C-alpha cells in the first residue's frame, strides 16, 4: 500500500500545529455523502466552524448511491467521503466493481442502524410466538425463524429482506441477527438491495418484508404505519462502527497536512455532537434539505436516543443510539476491519487467506488518526487491536491513561479475537463461506 509511507513524524506534527495560526491558508476539501444522520460530524465540522478553525473548508456534496460515492472518490470528484466501513475493507481486498483502495483514518460514528420488519410480518410473529412487544432482539429473531418455518410448511413464498449495499454493516448485521436464531440468510430468505430513501415505500408496496438501514429511515417506516423495529445495532453489536471517513491513498499522501487538519476538525466536531445540549442544534442542521432533510422533530427525537418502534406508539430508549465521540468512537480499530473481513468470509464474499488478512487490516489507519491528534486532549488508544464484543467491560490504554469501555457483546455472545479469525469464522453454526457471495433469487 502506497500510503503506508505516511508514518507519524513529530516534526511534521509541529509544523501542522503552527500552521493553524494562519487562517488565511484556506483549503477546500470536497466531501461526498449519502443523506443519513451519521453525516452529523461532517456537517457540524463545517457549520460550527471547526473546519474553519483548522484553515479548511468542507464542500459537502450529496449523492444517491454508495457505488457513486466509491467511483467519484476514485476519480477525484471527491477528496474524501462519508463511507460504509466495509466499503474501505472491500476496496483493499479488491472486491466489488471498480475497487480502488480506500483508507479509513477516522470513524464518523457508531450506532444508528435498525432492523425493521413489516407490521404484518411482526403481527404473525406475535401470534405464533406469543410476543408481547417488549422482547429482546434474539427472542424476536427466534420468532422470525418460527414464522419462516411455518411459511415454508404452508408453501408460501420466501420473505424478501433488504439492505443498502453488499458491503455494508446493514448486510452483515441483518445476517448476524437471522443466523443467531438459526435462519440461513442465503437459503431461507431472499436478500436484496433497496436504497435507504425507498425502503418505506418498498415496504408499503409489499415488495419487501423487512430491511436494515440507518437512521432516520426505520423510524420513518414506523411513523408511516408500515414497519416494526425488531432490533437495533446496539442489540447486535453495541460498539459496531458504522460510517468512516474514506480517503484515497494518493490524496492522503499528497495532502498530509490537510488530512491532519481535517481529522482535528472532525475530532472537535464529534466531541461537540456528543454534547446533549447541542443535539437540538444538530437536529436543525441535519434537517436542512442540503443535508438529510425532513423533520427536525423526528431527527431530534432520534438524537435523544428515543426510537418509536411500533406504529402502536411503543417507544424504546436506546442509550447511545448514535455515538459520535465517546469511548474512542472515532478510533479506527484494526480489529474492527478484521471483524468485517470475517463476515465477508462467513458469507462467501471473500475467501479467508493470510494475504486477505493483511489487506483487510491495511484499510484502517490508526497511525494517521494518532498522527493528526498527537498532543490533543482526546485520549488516543495505544494498541491498534482489541477483543471485539467483550461480554464484560474492558480497559484500554490510551495516551491519557486507562479508558474503560462498556461491555459490548455480540447478539450470540461470541467474542472476536482478531488473532483467531480463522477459528472465529469456522465456529459459526450458520455460515456460507462458499456461497459465491450474496443470495439466490433476488426480487
Amino acid at each position: 500500500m502506497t500510503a503506508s509511507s505516511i508514518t507519524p513524524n513529530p516534526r511534521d506534527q509541529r509544523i501542522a500545529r503552527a500552521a493553524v495560526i494562519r487562517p488565511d491558508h484556506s483549503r477546500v476539501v470536497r466531501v461526498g455523502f449519502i443523506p443519513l444522520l451519521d453525516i452529523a460530524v461532517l456537517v457540524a465540522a463545517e457549520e460550527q466552524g471547526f473546519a474553519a478553525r483548522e484553515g479548511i473548508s468542507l464542500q459537502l456534496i450529496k449523492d444517491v448511491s454508495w457505488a457513486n460515492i466509491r467511483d467519484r472518490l476514485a476519480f477525484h470528484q471527491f477528496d474524501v467521503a462519508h463511507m460504509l466501513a466495509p466499503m474501505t475493507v472491500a476496496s483493499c481486498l479488491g472486491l466489488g466493481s471498480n475497487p480502488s483502495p480506500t483508507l479509513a483514518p477516522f470513524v464518523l460514528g457508531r450506532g444508528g442502524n435498525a432492523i425493521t420488519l413489516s407490521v404484518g410480518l411482526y403481527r404473525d410473529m406475535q401470534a405464533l410466538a406469543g410476543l408481547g412487544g417488549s422482547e429482546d432482539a434474539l427472542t424476536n429473531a427466534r420468532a422470525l425463524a418460527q414464522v419462516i418455518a411455518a411459511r415454508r410448511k404452508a408453501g408460501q413464498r420466501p420473505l424478501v429482506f433488504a439492505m443498502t449495499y453488499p458491503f455494508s454493516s446493514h448486510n452483515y448485521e441483518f445476517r448476524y441477527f437471522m443466523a443467531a436464531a438459526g435462519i440461513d440468510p442465503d437459503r431461507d430468505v431472499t436478500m436484496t438491495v433497496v436504497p435507504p430513501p425507498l425502503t418505506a415505500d418498498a415496504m408499503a408496496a409489499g415488495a419487501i418484508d423487512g430491511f436494515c438501514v440507518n437512521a432516520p429511515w426505520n423510524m420513518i417506516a414506523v411513523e408511516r404505519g408500515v414497519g416494526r423495529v425488531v432490533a437495533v445495532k446496539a442489540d447486535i453489536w453495541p460498539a459496531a462502527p458504522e460510517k468512516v471517513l474514506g480517503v484515497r491513498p494518493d490524496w492522503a499522501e499528497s495532502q498530509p497536512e490537510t488530512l491532519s487538519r481535517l481529522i482535528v476538525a472532525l475530532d472537535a466536531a464529534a466531541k461537540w455532537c456528543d454534547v446533549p445540549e447541542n443535539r437540538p442544534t444538530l437536529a436543525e442542521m441535519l434537517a436542512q434539505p442540503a443535508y438529510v432533510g425532513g423533520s427536525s422533530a423526528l431527527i431530534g427525537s432520534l438524537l435523544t436516543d428515543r426510537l418509536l418502534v411500533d406504529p402502536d406508539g411503543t417507544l424504546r430508549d436506546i442509550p447511545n443510539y448514535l455515538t459520535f465521540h465517546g469511548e474512542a468512537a472515532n478510533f479506527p480499530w484494526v480489529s474492527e476491519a478484521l471483524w468485517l473481513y470475517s463476515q465477508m468470509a462467513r458469507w462467501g464474499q471473500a475467501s479467508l487467506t493470510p494475504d486477505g488478512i493483511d489487506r483487510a487490516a491495511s484499510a484502517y489507519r490508526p497511525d494517521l488518526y494518532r498522527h493528526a491528534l498527537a498532543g490533543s486532549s482526546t485520549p488516543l488508544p495505544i494498541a491498534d487491536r482489541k477483543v471485539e464484543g467483550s461480554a464484560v467491560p474492558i480497559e484500554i490504554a490510551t495516551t491519557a491513561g486507562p479508558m474503560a469501555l462498556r461491555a459490548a457483546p455480540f447478539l450470540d455472545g461470541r467474542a472476536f479475537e482478531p488473532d483467531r479469525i480463522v477459528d472465529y469464522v469456522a465456529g459459526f453454526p450458520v455460515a456460507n463461506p462458499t456461497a459465491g457471495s450474496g443470495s439466490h433469487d433476488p426480487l
Partner: protein
Amino acid sequence: MFDGYLSFLPGLAWFLLALHVHAERARTDGSPMKPNAIRVVVVDDNALRAAILVDGLREAGIDGVEVIETSTQLVRRLAAIDPDVIIIDLENPSRDMLEQMFQVSRVVSRPVAMFVDQSDQSMIRAAVDAGVSAYIVDGLKKERVKAIVDMAISRFEAFDRLQRELLEARSELADRKVIDRAKGILMRSRNLSEEEAYALLRQAAMNEKRRIADIAQSLVTAAGLLGK
C-alpha cells in the same frame, strides 16, 4: 405576455434535440456498424435522455435496446432480459441494486464483469464525469464495449448541454417578464413612456452595479409590498 412563449419550451427542447440528433447522425454515418445481437438495457428514469441514448445506439446499429425504469422489479427484469450491457445514469439510486446483483453469481446466467473494462480507467473516468455508468458482460469484444460506452457518454453530455440551454432560455424569458412588469409599474406610477421606464431601470442597474433584471425584481417586490 411572455406566458405564450413559455408554452413553446417543450417544443423548443425537441427542436434542439432533433438538431443534435441530426448532427450526430452526420458524424456517425461515416463509420456505420453492422447490426448484431447485442442486448443493451438503459436504466434511466429520464425519458427524454433515454430516448436520446436509444436513438444513438440504434444509429450505431444496435437494435436490441430496451429502456427500463427504476422499480422494485428492476433486478427481475434485468435477469429476464439478460443483457450484455447495462447503462445506468449516476443520479439513479438503483445503482446499488446492480452492485448487489453482480455480487450474486446465480442471478445472471453469464459472468458479469464489473464496471466497464477495469483496464480502461480513462473511459470509466469519462463516464463518471458525464454522469453515466455501464456494466458489461464478460467476454464482450473491447471495441464493441468502447463504442457503446462512448455513445452513452456523448449522449449524456449532449443532454446536459440541452438542459443548460433550456435553463438559460427559461431564465432569459423570466428576466424579460420581470423587466416588463417593472417597466409597467414605473410607467403607471411615474407616468413615463416605455423607453423612459427602461432607461431608468438601466441607469439604476449601472449605478448599483447590478443586473437590470435584479433591479426590476426588487422594484416588483417593493411595489408588491407597498400595494401598488
